[in-house]
């Protein structure tokens, strides 16, 4: 009986809340822009806060992990999405191919972003670069590394890597297919599988952690994670992991550069606040924002001449693999199938 008496006000409160829900969604701002992102928003939060402060435009975000394309496409003309932000070139091009983006003709964007890092149809734009590098145990005496070396029997039982199906890895394998051919890429995957110290799972930071844990000696991961870990507060786990590794920028045997993926954005096709979306996009390639990408997130700025973070600088010069991003995107289905075929994840 007492339970029922207590439950009644709760029910009433809940129904009031339910009635208030539509109001919550419709909070009116002078100017706002709706950002759908597959990037964890906290990573770009410093940028968005700076944008709001400088322009007075409020940014609403939703972090959609998988299914951004499906959601925006289903929402159709009703979609509140203004700007779509993703990591990985494949995901970005999926949005373009899925028909949920629109072109933006902007001199500011064209001036800041090199031509090969934006769509020639003006549908997509790179905002930052992320090189995929080797983490090696601090005491190992190696100075240069080819991606192909990861399959060298020398590293048997000493290699750590995240899932072969993760976009970061399929993009790398796609580049390998372009440089060395599909057959060599398949052999490479078999070699890497034979070298695995543990199942291909977890995240990039786990590579550093497992190196410190003595499970492996080398692994492949994105450079900015090393930047984060090496700059974490003294005494934290992350700092200990970061301090246990050295970053080497590998190159391909047949190409002089390091594999680089991107984070980027596109304006949504039915953007209700198109002007603000373009404004935000242009803001993200200003010197100020690009320097935030570098300093707050240890990424590589897309804009030339923006200073790097000292930690990232210490990794040495970055020579970018000249392979066009679109070719990487084109090869990634084959890359994913090769991962299945070789059982890398099993």
């Amino acid at each position, binding site marked *: 009986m007492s339970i029922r008496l207590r439950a009644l006000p709760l029910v009433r409160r809940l129904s009031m809340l339910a009635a208030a829900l*539509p109001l919550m969604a419709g909070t009116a701002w002078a100017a706002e822009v709706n950002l759908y992102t597959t990037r964890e928003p906290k990573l770009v939060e410093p940028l968005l806060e700076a944008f709001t402060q400088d322009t007075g435009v409020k940014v609403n975000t939703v972090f959609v*992990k998988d299914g951004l*394309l499906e959601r925006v496409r289903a*929402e159709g003309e009703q979609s509140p999405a203004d700007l779509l932000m993703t990591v990985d070139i494949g995901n970005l091009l999926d949005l373009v191919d899925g028909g949920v983006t629109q072109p933006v003709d902007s001199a500011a964007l064209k001036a800041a972003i090199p031509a090969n890092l934006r769509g020639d149809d003006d549908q997509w734009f790179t905002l930052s670069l992320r090189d995929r590098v080797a983490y090696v145990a601090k005491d190992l005496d190696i100075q240069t590394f080819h991606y192909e070396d990861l399959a060298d029997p020398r590293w048997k039982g000493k290699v750590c890597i995240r899932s072969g199906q993760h976009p970061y890895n399929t993009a790398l394998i796609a580049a390998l297919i372009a440089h060395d051919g599909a057959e060599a890429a398949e052999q490479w995957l078999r070699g890497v599988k034979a070298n695995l110290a*543990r199942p291909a799972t977890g995240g990039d930071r786990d590579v550093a952690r497992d190196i410190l*844990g003595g499970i492996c000696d080398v692994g492949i991961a994105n450079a900015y994670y090393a930047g984060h870990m090496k700059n974490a507060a003294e005494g934290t*786990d992350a700092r200990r992991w970061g301090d246990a590794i050295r970053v080497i920028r590998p190159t391909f045997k047949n190409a002089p550069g390091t594999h680089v993926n991107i984070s980027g954005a596109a304006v949504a096709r039915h953007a209700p606040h198109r002007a603000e979306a373009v404004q935000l996009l242009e803001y993200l390639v200003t010197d100020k924002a690009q320097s935030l990408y570098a300093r707050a997130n240890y990424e590589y700025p897309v804009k030339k001449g923006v200073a790097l973070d000292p930690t990232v600088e210490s990794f040495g010069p970055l020579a970018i693999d000249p392979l066009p991003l679109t070719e990487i995107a084109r090869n990634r289905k084959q890359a994913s199938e090769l991962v*299945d075929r070789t059982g890398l994840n*099993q």
Partner: protein
Amino acid sequence: MTANGRFQAWPWHAGTALAALAVLAPILALVGQAGQGSGAHWGHLLQFVLPGVLAQTLGLLIGVGLLAAALGVGAAWLVTAYDFPGRRALSWALLLPLAVPTYIVAYAYLDILHPLGPVQEAVRALLGYSSPREFRLPDLRSLPGAIVLLAFVLYPYVYLTTRSMFASQAAHLMEAARLLGHGPWSAFLRVALPLARPAIAVGLCLVLLETLNDIGASEFLGVQTLTVAIYTTWVTRSDLAGAAQIALVSLALVTLLIAVERRGRRRLRYTGNRRAAPIRRHVLHGPAACLATLLGLAPVLIGFAAPAAYLLALVLERLGTGQGPSPALLRAVGQTLTVSALATLFALAIGLVVAWSRRILPRVHAWQGALPRLATLGYAVPGTVLAIGLLFPLMAIERGLSALRAATGMDPAGLVLLGTPAALALAYVIRFLTIPVGTLEAGLDRIPPSLDQAARLLGENVHGMLRRVHLPLLRPALAASALLIFVDAMKELPATLLLRPLNFDTLATWLYAEAARGTYEEGAIAALCIVVAGLLPVILLARLMDRPTA
């Protein structure tokens, strides 16, 4: 049933049909998506993916199923049939792992058991090794690791359903078995266990579906399940049609399994015709009592106390450095509780309609009996796949609402369902409807049909019969399913990630975002919030369970 009775029953059947339609809508949308695919990927799948994936999935299901059933039934029997120190506390503490999502337990145990973690550090110190390079224990990231971990977190589903069955059914039959010369073990195996079969089946079904559709924990531990293959096809190869095809095949297999199990006990009736008396507990003394306490404690320690204590230690460490929960996190707590509570209320109400409609159904047409089954399909599909399917009917409704607003001179722009947490609550209801339907049906099955006949003879119609006879008897089952829905909704991640509106976080998405950045330590506060919020309904339920049934 009289013509009059049939007339009264129609609102219940209509409600059931509506619920079945709501659940079917996203699945039909998936069928539509699957039909747009070519099927070209099946050759690749059959040759390179499915053999390994099916072996791992089956291994995982069998391993988790056996271990979770043994833990759940064993624990339920232990606290029902024996008396030993700590029994009362254990009887509710055994529910605690329910409060912790599997992915959080996986994160926590990887930390605890990692070569850098406290356990291996202690082992190395004990054996005189100085570095993990010299000595390491086997890695948790393996199929056996995933089996043990999932079983110790998911067994409470079996414990919960089985315990209430033991408590209310077995007593007088156990007495009879004992009088006929059976010892406690023999009586357990020959009387209590067969009697509890429907309850075990309901609990085990939830365990297996949770295991099958789990994406966080098994992927994190490096186990390639069918669900992971669905994800790969969809996300990595951008082939939604192909993914929908695999998901539908998987759904068909699951449905078949459930149907076979139901058919297996079709002819059996489990109602007792006496008022349930509490079972007389066998009092244990000395070493036996000690052993019983330890046995009961082990699942709680492994499934709850160790990971929770670990999270607590992380949080205290953070609070020590002056970093408390942010206002945004507190807002996420409120949003989580609100949307979970809404989903619980709706799912409970709809579940009651479905279960009751089956009870009063004149069994004329087979398809009428199939409707309640259809209403429970949502749990058999991975969360994201269901959410993708749900996008299509949701948008159909949105377009209708927009046209309606335009016709009535209101602003037709904006999304009413997807723009608010309404779509989320609806997704939870559809996904978790099987919980109230399953538990309430099991509860109704234990109420003898003679009570229905008596109620009818005394002039009650179907509505009054429910209100005055069955509903009071269903109180424990209602409480149990409310708890399970609430906790499940709170922990739900994949559908929440896809369907939530702008600026909306639940604790699960908050935690996921932290994990996506690779900052698990900062996620500890959110993880602990999920655990604590999950504890409240667990404790509430435990109190209700201990209360003698009305």
